[in-house]
């Protein structure tokens, strides 16, 4: 998978800084799980964090506190058996399940389960089904039937969408599995899904969608979008 649409650099920076909301972080991590380019960007953003940490002047704790903390650390080292050293960093193995077509990306599994086949979709509108993540109402998976045109809309504060299966087109281009649509509040679009396969996406919304037409706006109230 070689994505053509990437995360906004401001989103990568937010992820590195720990300043993205939880829903956005989940979707960003789904993208970065399969995007080496954005992982490289993240690495650079974390180096900025490391340098900022290193550059900080004047220590916060007073001298006495520092001395007490230092002694406490020395005492702790005395109590750690030598055999424990080396166990502080978790070993990370490659996921053997990564290539399994029915398996959800690892970042989504705590919220939606591990299998596409086991997803319990809720009807939302003709051709559109969704599942909201328990406890995170603005994180949702959406399944849109092939060849469906969504109403034209913008986003209250922004939207981060990752395409998982199928594809769609809008004025911004063609979005296929692995692509991220990292849209600001000033973007208005009308996605049309590609014929053939249902388009499954995961989305994080900062605020409710804003529909242009009055019919769509009425529909929005019913659908709680």
């Amino acid at each position, binding site marked *: 998978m070689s994505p053509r649409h990437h995360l906004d650099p401001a989103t990568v920076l937010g992820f590195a800084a720990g300043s993205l909301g939880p829903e956005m972080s989940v979707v960003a991590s789904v993208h970065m799980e399969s995007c080496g380019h954005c992982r490289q960007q993240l690495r650079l953003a974390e180096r*900025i964090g490391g340098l900022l940490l290193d550059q900080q002047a004047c220590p*916060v704790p007073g001298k006495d506190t520092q001395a007490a903390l230092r002694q406490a650390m020395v005492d702790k080292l005395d109590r750690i058996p030598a055999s424990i050293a080396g166990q502080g960093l978790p070993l990370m193995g490659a996921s053997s399940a990564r290539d399994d077509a029915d398996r959800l990306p690892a970042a989504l599994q705590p919220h939606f389960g591990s299998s596409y086949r086991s997803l319990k979709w809720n009807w939302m509108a003709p051709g559109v089904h969704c599942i909201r993540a328990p406890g995170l109402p603005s994180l949702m998976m959406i399944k849109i039937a092939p060849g469906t045109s969504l109403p034209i809309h913008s986003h209250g504060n922004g939207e981060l969408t990752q395409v998982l299966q199928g594809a769609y087109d809008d004025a911004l281009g063609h979005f296929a599995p692995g692509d991220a649509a990292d849209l600001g509040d000033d973007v208005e679009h009308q996605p049309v899904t590609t014929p053939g396969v249902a388009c499954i996406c995961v989305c994080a919304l900062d605020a409710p969608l804003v529909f242009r037409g009055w019919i769509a706006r009425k529909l929005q109230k019913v659908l709680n979008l």
Partner: protein
Amino acid sequence: MISVPPSQSHALKQWVAEMDGVARRQDRECFMRIYDHFMPRLCRYLSGLGAPPVVAEDLAQEAMLKLWNGAERYDPARSGLGTWLYRVARNLHIDRVRREHIWVHAQDVVDQAAEHDVQQDSLAELHAEQVRLRQCLGELSAAQARLIRMSYFEAKTHTEIAKELGMPLGTVKSHLRRAFLQLQSSMGEQR
């Protein structure tokens, strides 16, 4: 502007040598030199994020203990020591203070995927990059530097920054985007 005190330019290779001492010999003197440099910085960073002083100190101690226990697996080609500690402290804060375990899981997923990314930077390249980055941080505009600080040191979302500064969300993002691209170009990365 973000100040850049030149006296703090600890060479990466010094930390690599100290970490080597910790990993191979469990050398406490090496460890305590790392501790003396980074502990106050970690406390300050964690306090800035909003952790009460005692909590900040506990988390900073825990980050340093992770370093002691994990020194054998520290790979200087993957990240500088400051970056490694920054990540540990950030994750501890998100996990223990903000209690956003979801976020930590999301981070783990990306870390796991990154395990197989090729890292080609030599120590000399990393050092040169750090010097350039340090200089570039000092050259950011006042607005960019402020937003970078609010992101990294206060962990404020783009929306929170926009509200606090009375700035349109799009402007916050474009300032941060430009700042990041500017910093990237100093590190030899062109988008």
